[in-house]
C-alpha cells in the first residue's frame, strides 16, 4: 500500500483518514499521522492501554512514583523493616525484597498497580488453608477498624486491634501463624 504523508505535519505517514461528508458527497478530506490525529482529538490517545508493559516502561513508572521521595538520593524514602529494601533499591531493580514491601511501599504501589493492571485489588482465588482458618488481617483493614472503634468509643476492641496491628507491623504480614 502506498504511504501518504500526513497533511498536517508533512513528516510522518498518515494512518488516520478523516472524510467530511456533506449530503453524502465528499466535502473535505484530511490524512493525519497518529500523533497529529491524537493532537487534534480525532482519535483517542493510544498511549494508555495499548502499549505492552515492558520492563523499561515499568522502570519509568517506578522512577516517577518514587522520584518524589527518593529525589535521586540513595537511601531516601521508606525502607522496608523486614528486608531492608529502600525506595531506591526498588526503583533500580523493579523488584520487591519481600512480602512486607507491599505494605512498606504501599503509597507508591497503589498508583503503580493502577497503571499496570488498571486495578488495585485481587479478584482471583484464595489459598484453601487461608479460607479454612479465616482470612488474614490486612494492615489496611485493621487500621480502618481501629479508627472506627475509637470513634465509636469501643475502647476494648480498639485495644485488641491496636495489639494485633503492632504484632503485624513488626513482622511480614504473611508469616503470621
Amino acid at each position, binding site marked *: 500500500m502506498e504511504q501518504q504523508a500526513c497533511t498536517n505535519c508533512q513528516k510522518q505517514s498518515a494512518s488516520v483518514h478523516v472524510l467530511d461528508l456533506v449530503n453524502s458527497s465528499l466535502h473535505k478530506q484530511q490524512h493525519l499521522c497518529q500523533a497529529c490525529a491524537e493532537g487534534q482529538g480525532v482519535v483517542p490517545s493510544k498511549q494508555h*492501554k495499548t502499549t505492552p508493559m515492558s520492563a523499561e516502561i515499568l522502570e519509568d513508572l517506578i522512577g516517577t512514583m518514587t522520584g518524589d521521595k527518593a529525589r535521586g538520593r540513595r537511601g531516601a524514602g521508606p525502607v522496608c523493616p523486614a528486608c531492608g529494601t529502600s525506595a531506591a533499591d526498588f526503583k533500580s531493580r523493579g*523488584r520487591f525484597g519481600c512480602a512486607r514491601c507491599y505494605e512498606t511501599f504501599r503509597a507508591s504501589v497503589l498508583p503503580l498497580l493502577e497503571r499496570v493492571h488498571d486495578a488495585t485489588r485481587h479478584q482471583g482465588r484464595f489459598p484453601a488453608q487461608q479460607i479454612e482458618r479465616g482470612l488474614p488481617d490486612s494492615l489496611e483493614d485493621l487500621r480502618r477498624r481501629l479508627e472506627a472503634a475509637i470513634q465509636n468509643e469501643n475502647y476494648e476492641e480498639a485495644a485488641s486491634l491496636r495489639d494485633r496491628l503492632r504484632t503485624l507491623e513488626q513482622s511480614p504480614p504473611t508469616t503470621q501463624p
Partner: protein
Amino acid sequence: MSESNFVVPENFQLGEWLRGQGRDADLAICTRVRVARNIQGYGFQPTLKPEDASELLHAVHRALTRSSFPEQLRVVDLTQLDEIERGVLMERHLISRDLAASDRPRSVAVNEQESVSVMVNEEDHVRAQVFHSGFAVNETYARAERLDDALMAEVPFAFSEEFGFLTSCPTNVGTGLRLSVMLHLPGLVWADEIDKATATVQKISLAVRGLYGEGSRALGDFYQVSNQVTLGRSERDIVRDVETAVERLMSWEREVREALLRGDSRARTLDRIHRALGVLERAHILSSEEALNCLSAVRFGVHAEIIDNVQVRDLNIALLLSQPAHLQRVHRMPLSASQRDERRATLVRSVLRQK
C-alpha cells in the same frame, strides 16, 4: 560426521509443546499456564541469602516428590548441568532464560511428558508451568490449579487478601497467572496484517511476544499471546480473555491463508512454500533464522495440503534440533556459529529425507 549418518531415534521425545496434536494444532502449537508463587517467611529473590535459597529449595523438593503429589516429577539440580544442557531445557521451554543463566541454587522438576515443569528460585520462589499441545486453555488451567493446590497444601505461599499472591515484581501480583498460547501465524505475516492483528490484541491488554517470551523476536512466525494483567481479574476472566483473543486471531489467520491461496496470490504463495522446501532439502549452510522461516513456510504448506510428503512431526523435530543448544548436544561439543549453520543444514536435510 558425514552428511547422511544423522539418524533421529524412533522414540525421539519432542516434549508436550511440540507434540503437534490437539484442538487447532495446525495454528495453535501449544497452550501454557505459568503460576508465580513465593513462600512465606523467606525474602524474595533480591534479598534471599544463598543458605536460605538452599533451604527453600529442599522444602519445595520434599513437597514435589511426596508420593501423594498429583504429578510425577523428577528434580533436576541446575547447578550440576553445563551451559549446553541448561540451554536444551530452555529451548524445550522447561526453564526460563533467567533460570538458565543465574548462579543461585536453583532447580526444575519435570514430568516425563514434559507437560509439567516447576522452577524453583526463579524471579519468584516457585514458578509452576503446565503445557498442553494445541489450543486447550481450560484443560491447561485446570491442571495448573490442581498443581498449585497440591503445592499450597505443603508450603505456605505469601498472600494478602488485598493484593492476592505476592510476587517479586508487581506486574505479576494477584493471580500470579500467565496464560499463553503459542500461535503459528505465517498467513498474517505474509499478508502484512500481523501488526494490525497484534495491535488489536494489545488493545485489550494482552501481550504478544516471540518464540522465547519477553523481548524475543517473532522468529518462524510464532507468536505467543498472553494476559498482561494479573490483578483485578479472576483466573476465569483471564482464561476467557485469552481464549477470545486467540479464537479471533485464529479465524483471522484462516481467512488470510485462504486468500493467499486464491486468485493472483496463489502462485506467489506456492512459489514461496516450495522454495522454502527446496532450501531445507538442499542447502548446505542454514542459519537459525533461515531454518525457522523455511520451516514456517513448509508447515503452512503441509497444513494447506500443498506439500504431502512431509510430516509435521519431522518439521517439529527439525525445529527443535536446529536450535543452538540441541544442535550442540547432538554433536556432543560446543560449535561456533558457522559450524552450527553447516551442521544445522545437514541435520535438517537428513530429518526431511527420513520418510
